[in-house]
């Protein structure tokens, strides 16, 4: 059965290839090939999953070595697959949610002339993402890692005649590459210390590595995770990535690719287990990010940007969870899965709204859409409730578990981590309620407006290919959390992540935490209702707002900082270097001409004996050749 494993990524890769090479004649059916490839991959994933489930827990980690990829001296990098509970969990998430989003895209992209290209790139993404999670060594991980980066670049820039899309795509790739440098150097360090890059050997022998180096490796891996997962300080590319088509935002920039950083840390848990400092840095990055995301999410009027910052914030929770070590790895993955469901559903809902509203994303132009598109309203609403942690919906189980574990930390960490996570839960409830009210409730503001393309708005429910995936994801958002905890997700993941540590002690009694979180969330909803629901929403964005709102609207100045510290100095440096290089040309050429005369004299003095005459004759010959060549006129 393990022989089927390569099909997981080969099928979507073939789908991409077929769509790329078939040319225009495939315009009519290429998208169905794309859907079929991912669905087939999902079926293979299910087969492998059930087969693995039938094995004893100790035997559930298996390796499939395909061929030797890069080999030189003592270095031997395998092109191989690791099938274990962690990778299979991701396979099912990627291909499952991926299938739904491919299906949705058939409807969503039906009017787009570039639909075939879109499906090729989406398939390419699925293939790369599967390689990322299935690889059995760090170089395979890197292959998938940059592969999804390319797919993300292509898809963010899909509407390539929009300059803003092209710029956003470039920004995403560059900020990811900053993280990739960290990942690459971590790989170099591992190879230097251990002489291998295979997971099994690295994890078995990581104890031999000096503790300082282990800490360095964990920080460098974290840098990689920050780039891919939009974590502080590399978060600002993710909201810009919303330039891509909405199914891309759902699949790549919410459910799967951006969670790769969480995967990386969970996968390398044997390394993180060795360094408390390393884990603390991870948790701090998570806490800072979850606050940043939640704060900025409150200020935007662009429905996709609010969801994007929500993603930043929710991944912050996951990073915080895996930063808690053995008490948190499985919690991070749990939240990753439930978030995959409800955030993908929310994005698809947002896409459905945009589809109905002439691709407008400004929530100030919406209002009262609940009556016009009931399926979208209900599915989106369920996703909303799941995200804010409404009791017994999926977000309630996964997010609460993380906050509980955060409060269970000793000393200041318990208060800071737990407190920040609870506060952000309240903010999440606020910005999501604001989004709900502005979009689906209240006055139908769009009636008096023209769409950006000059047409009237005619909101309508989306076609079946779009609503079915939304319904499936909404069902997942409702029951996912309960089901996953009931069927024993933590025990299933234990062979990959270790046993989940029981919580004990900490800042607050465990029984109190759920109540506290629900209280904060309810407060957030209430404040949003009072501020947004009870008052008319102006169609134009008010410009005279308080300082915090201004700061949040400018992404807490992340781009401004990047611009002042990196972009501008970089441009000046480049200009200066070009100037110097061009000036240097003339100087050097003159130097060469002068040197030519001098060197012959010096050469002569170097020689002794009869060799000299030969040297001189050769030199003479050379000079003759030069003279002859220079005499040739090219006209």
């Amino acid at each position, binding site marked *: 059965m393990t022989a089927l494993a390569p099909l997981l990524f080969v099928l979507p890769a073939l789908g991409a290839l077929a769509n790329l090479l078939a040319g225009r004649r495939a315009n009519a059916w290429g998208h169905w090939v794309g859907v079929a490839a991912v669905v087939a991959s999902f079926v293979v994933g299910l087969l492998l999953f059930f087969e693995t489930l039938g094995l004893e827990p100790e035997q559930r980690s298996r390796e499939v070595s395909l061929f030797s*990829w890069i080999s030189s001296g003592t270095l031997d990098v395998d092109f191989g697959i690791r099938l274990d509970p962690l990778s299979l969990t991701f396979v099912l998430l990627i291909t499952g949610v991926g299938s739904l989003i491919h299906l949705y895209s058939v409807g969503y992209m039906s009017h787009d002339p570039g639909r075939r290209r879109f499906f090729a790139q989406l398939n390419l993404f699925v293939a790369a993402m599967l390689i990322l999670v299935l690889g059995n060594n760090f170089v395979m991980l890197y292959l998938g890692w940059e592969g999804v980066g390319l797919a993300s670049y292509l898809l963010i820039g899909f509407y390539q005649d929009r300059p803003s899309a092209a710029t956003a795509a470039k920004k995403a790739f560059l900020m990811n590459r900053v993280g990739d440098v960290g990942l690459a150097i971590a790989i170099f360090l591992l190879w230097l210390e251990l002489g291998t890059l295979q997971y099994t050997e690295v994890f078995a022998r990581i104890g031999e590595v000096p503790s300082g180096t282990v800490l360095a490796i964990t920080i460098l891996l974290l840098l990689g995770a920050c780039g891919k997962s939009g974590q502080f300080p590399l978060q600002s590319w993710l909201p810009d990535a919303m330039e891509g088509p909405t199914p891309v935002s759902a699949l790549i920039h919410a459910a799967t690719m951006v969670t790769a950083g969480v995967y990386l840390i969970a996968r390398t848990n044997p390394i993180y287990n060795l360094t408390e400092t390393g884990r603390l840095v991870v948790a701090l990055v998570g806490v800072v990010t979850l606050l940043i995301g939640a704060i900025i999410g409150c200020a935007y009027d662009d429905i996709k940007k609010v969801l994007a910052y929500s993603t930043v914030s929710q991944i912050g929770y996951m990073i915080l969870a895996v930063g808690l070590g053995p008490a948190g790895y499985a919690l991070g993955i749990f939240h990753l899965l439930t978030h995959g469901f409800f955030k993908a559903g929310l994005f698809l809902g947002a896409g459905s709204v945009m589809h109905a509203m002439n691709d407008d994303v400004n929530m100030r132009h919406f209002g009262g859409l609940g009556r016009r598109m009931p399926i979208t309203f209900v599915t989106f609403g369920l996703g909303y409730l799941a995200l804010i942690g409404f009791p017994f919906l999926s977000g309630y189980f996964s997010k609460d578990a993380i906050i509980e574990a955060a409060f269970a930390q000793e000393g200041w960490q318990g208060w800071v981590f737990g407190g920040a996570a609870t506060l952000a839960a309240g903010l999440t409830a606020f910005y999501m309620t604001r989004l709900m009210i502005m979009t689906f409730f209240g006055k139908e503001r769009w009636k008096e407006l023209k769409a950006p393309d000059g047409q009237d708005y005619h909101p309508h429910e989306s076609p079946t290919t779009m609503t079915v995936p939304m319904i499936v994801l909404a069902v997942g958002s409702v029951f996912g959390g309960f089901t996953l905890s009931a069927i024993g997700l933590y025990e299933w993941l234990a062979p990959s992540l270790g046993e989940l540590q029981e919580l004990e002690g900490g800042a607050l009694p465990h029984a109190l935490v759920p109540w506290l979180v629900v209280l904060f969330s309810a407060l957030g909803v209430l404040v949003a209702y009072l501020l947004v629901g009870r008052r008319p929403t102006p169609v134009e964005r008010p410009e005279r707002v308080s300082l915090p709102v201004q700061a949040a609207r400018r992404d807490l100045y992340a781009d401004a900082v990047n611009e002042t510290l990196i972009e501008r100095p970089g441009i000046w440096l480049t200009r200066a270097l070009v100037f110097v290089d061009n000036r240097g*040309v003339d100087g050097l050429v003159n130097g060469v001409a002068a040197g*030519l005369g001098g060197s012959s004299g010096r050469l002569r003095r170097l020689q002794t004996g009869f060799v000299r005459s030969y040297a001189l004759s050769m030199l003479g010959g050379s000079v003759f050749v*030069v003279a002859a060549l220079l005499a040739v006129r090219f006209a």
Partner: protein
Amino acid sequence: MNPMLIILLLVPVVGALLMYPLRHNVPAAKATAMVTALVEFLLVVVIWVGYDTAAAAAGTRFQYEFSVPWIPAFGTHLAFGIDGIALVLIALTAFLVPGLMLFAWAEKLPEGRTASGYFALLLATQATLMGVFTATDVFLFYVFFEAMLIPMYFLIGRFGGPNRQYASVKFFLYSLLGGLIMLASLIGLYVTSGNVLGQGTFTWTELQAIAQDVPTSTQIWLFLGFFVAFAIKAPLVPFHTWLPDAGAEAPIVAAVLLVGVLDKVGTFGFLRYCLPLFPDASQALAPLVITLAVIGVIYGALLAVGQKDMSRFVAYTSIAHFGFIALGTFAFSSQAFAGATLYMVNHGLSTGMLFVMVGLLVARGGSRLISDYGGVAKLAPLLAGCLLLAGMSSLALPGTNSFVSEFLVLVGSFPNEPVATIIATVGIIFAALYVLWFYQQTMQGPVRGNAVIKALETAGAGGPGAMIDPAVAASRGAGFPDLTKREIGVLAPLIVVIVLLGFFPGPVLDVINPSVQATMTELGLPDPVPAGGTSR
């Protein structure tokens, strides 16, 4: 005495000579040239198949050896032979030339120039390259090293862009200066070998055998002579300023051969001559070279972003890449050596493809200025896709050929040169920057740029000042057409090899590995990372 390499050398010479009688029959000349290039490629395939990697691993330094005395008084031989490093480079050369001929098939040449002359010079360049990579006599190598300049000089000077005179003379002077310094070292080497052996020699294996007996101070002087020549050829910063001019003014096919292959003679020279013949000097001076290499990685990348001319842009990206190759060459581990060697091949492929893409753009728009193009993806999506792939290979995306070599260079350099490696790794951000910047300027966004607009207007897609409907122009296939069948024929082999080598570099690495192991032995160095790593 295996005649294969002599045949390999003579085939393009004969082909070039045949161009003269055929000068008035252009189609026949082109066909003959193409057949010659294909025969040469087949020869290399045969040589590759016959190359015995097991024997190389067992210690056979050169294969297909051929040697006859040349100037007995000097002790020079017409001696040829290849190791794995030379083999992959002659394979690269033989692989590129037929495609370049196909590219040049319908090229508009400057007034008064004939295609037969053009193709003759291409074949002559190929012949000298084959000679330079297969020579195992240092003097013979020198002769080819200098001879290589002549056809390239004429290719640039006679067939190049508007500024070709300046560029070709500059190229020639720089190279010649380097050659002369090398000549001095060469003679010094001969004298030194005479002191050690009692009789001077130019034979590489004999010189290598006595390398450890030469005092370090002498080695350093001799090393520097060779080094300057190779550093100019490679080129390393600060010896690089001839390359942007030559690369920009050369016709595209010559630019591909110049930057893709001819420059590799410099880095090949480091590996074949500097390291094994002057092992102590190489180690003593490695910090200097590594510093220059790392400066090149960053400097070349930053300058690439500042360029206005597409060909100069590609030339500067190459300077950054040469930094990686030089870093790997002087980091003294078998992974870094193998990576540097593979990098030479991969850079030839990716930069070759980038230059070809530039050529295709210039053929449509008639301008080399980056700002004259914009939004081309809308008009010519296939062309844009190919440019992106070439760019991805240039920034060493995993899954393309260049990743394997760049990874090997970096992972292999890290143990001995951690700081330099980290700086070079930061260089991969800059690589992404220049590739994506270039792609965005020329391919993405709305259709714009003087060259594009002019091409569309002349094709009648819109009058002066009228809104140009790109869809109309594209559907007519006029103005700014997408790739033609012949152009796809030029690009397809490159694309296939770029992707295949990304996933299956094994066959090439198998050829390279024994020879870089031999180089490690000649240096007298163990691999810095033993099996099991340094922790064990």
